[in-house]
């Protein structure tokens, strides 16, 4: 009963979280990804690019680039438009401007494993293999699996056959479509502006990646400002900010402090961390998506 009153009061004061109840405007810009795919880093990069006067930290990131699942509705609606919003949602037709960040799911698995420990979803004795087999590949605890999240956003008319199994005797691969021109993966139908960003590309050349995002958003960005934003969002500076401000950030406040939120900020960790079985497990579930986004498969399928 008390919980009930509390939730009603929260709702009346609009202190409840937006989630699927949020209202969306056509000029909203969404920074979307599956968890542990470089979304926070990209938030910092963009936050610093757009606010050159003062470096962004974990204490104010929710104000600069609010998380749709963390920001109370009342605050969410007061943000100046166009709003830049972080989200882990699967496809939502109302999002008209989307930057989708994708990361090699094998690295996502490693990162998410440590994160699950950090937020106490699993304890230290839970093995990485078990995590991948039981929670990562089939699990829908982050509103869909990695493959569902990415697939729902990356499918379009030029790549739809990649996502189909032959059914009812109909083999989708047998029928061609003459008029189709290959375009980049992404739900860009009906005039939706869609930009696919690979975390690995961003790691390799953050300046070029940020410039590309700035162009997509129509932001004026001098090379100096890009350099400054990249420097202020480096893994080192984010680690320092995390240890100073982890109690001021809702995402890390009640988590284990012995496991950092900002971890290695590298790619290819799976090569040493994952067993061959786990790699095969991931690749057999989502090989079609990995091929589509340029991640080379290691197992023979």
């Amino acid at each position, binding site marked *: 009963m008390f919980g009930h009153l509390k939730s009603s009061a929260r709702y009346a004061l609009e202190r409840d979280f937006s989630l699927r109840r949020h209202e969306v405007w056509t000029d909203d810009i969404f920074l979307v990804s599956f968890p542990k795919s470089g979304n926070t880093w990209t938030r910092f990069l963009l936050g610093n690019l757009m606010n050159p006067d003062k470096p962004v930290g974990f204490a104010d990131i929710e104000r600069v680039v609010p998380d749709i699942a963390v920001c109370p509705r009342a605050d969410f609606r007061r943000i100046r438009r166009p709003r830049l919003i972080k989200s882990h949602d699967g496809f939502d037709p109302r999002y008209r401007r989307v930057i989708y960040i994708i990361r090699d799911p094998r690295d996502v698995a490693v990162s998410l494993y440590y994160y699950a420990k950090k937020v106490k979803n699993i304890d230290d004795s839970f093995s990485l293999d078990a995590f991948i087999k039981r929670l990562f590949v089939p699990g829908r605890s982050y509103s869909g699996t990695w493959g569902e999240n990415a697939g729902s956003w990356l499918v379009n008319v030029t790549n739809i056959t990649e996502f189909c199994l032959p*059914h009812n005797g109909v083999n989708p691969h047998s029928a061609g479509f003459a008029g189709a021109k290959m375009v980049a993966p992404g739900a860009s139908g009906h005039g939706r502006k869609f930009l696919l960003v690979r975390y690995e590309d961003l790691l390799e050349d953050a300046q070029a990646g940020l410039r590309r995002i700035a162009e997509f958003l129509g932001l004026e960005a001098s090379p100096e400002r890009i350099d400054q934003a990249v420097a202020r969002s480096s893994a080192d500076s984010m680690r320092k900010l995390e240890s100073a401000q982890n109690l001021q950030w809702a995402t890390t406040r009640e988590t284990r402090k012995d496991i950092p939120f900002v971890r290695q900020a590298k790619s290819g960790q799976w090569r040493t961390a994952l067993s061959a079985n786990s790699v095969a497990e991931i690749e057999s579930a989502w090989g079609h998506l990995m091929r589509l986004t340029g991640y080379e498969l290691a197992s023979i399928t």
Partner: protein
Amino acid sequence: MLIRLAFLANYSLERDIAGRTLHKHPDDIFVVAYPGSGGQWLRRLVANLLDPSNSVTEANVMSRLPDLYHLSRRGFAKMNRPRIIFSHECFDGEYCKVIYLVRDPRDVAVALCEQRRQGGSVENALSLEQFVPLFLTKTGEYQGGWSEEFSGSIKANQGFAYRSRLKDEFLGTPASWGENAMSWIGARGRDPNAMLTLRYEDLVSDPQAELGRVAEFLNLAGLNLDGSPERIRLALEAAKSQATPQEPGKWRKVLPETAVQAIESVWGPVMTAMGYALQADTVEQCR
């Protein structure tokens, strides 16, 4: 202000319509179809399958297999689990088990236009040729708005209704035919354990076999149904009095050439992937 308070009171009592804010359980099963795809027919077939001795009626379909848009959060909370729920939504990762019904969009155009004319949301004078670019191949232009705006009507045992302008914002958004289908196929097309894809056309031509697949899927999803051919036949028999499916291919007779082209040029590859032959291809072959 008054209406806001009224909504708040309803919210506290969980009398607001669930819509996209429905609290989902991992054992929920969703029957999803784009509007105009024969979803209501499938919904009644499935409802009959659940209890063939007591066939579904307009009065009890809401309690047996409710849809997201006409039942309150409280109504959903009180349902026995596992629940089976009807929805028009695009991909939602919290829908763990989904039966997705797809239909040739050229027939969807015809059916949807008829539905809208009957419902009064489009004028009778609006031709199919005008309907397709206005309502089918275009996704809604969402302007945004406050979720709390709603009309004050409460239907008995159902819930608080919203103003239609904001229904999309709050209750849900089926988007366009192509976006709806692609979002589900993109997410689950290769995962037959999580999603059973049915084609309306197959359901019409061999309902016994297709409904058998439905029963099998429901059983794998945790239901304990008798999926015998006899029971399926009974369910089909019971549904006959409630809904007669439209014969596939009506578009060939009534849909103007420009409308066919408009649909095929936007979603041709999706249609091909679903096994619908394009008129553009047929014309090509004849030459």
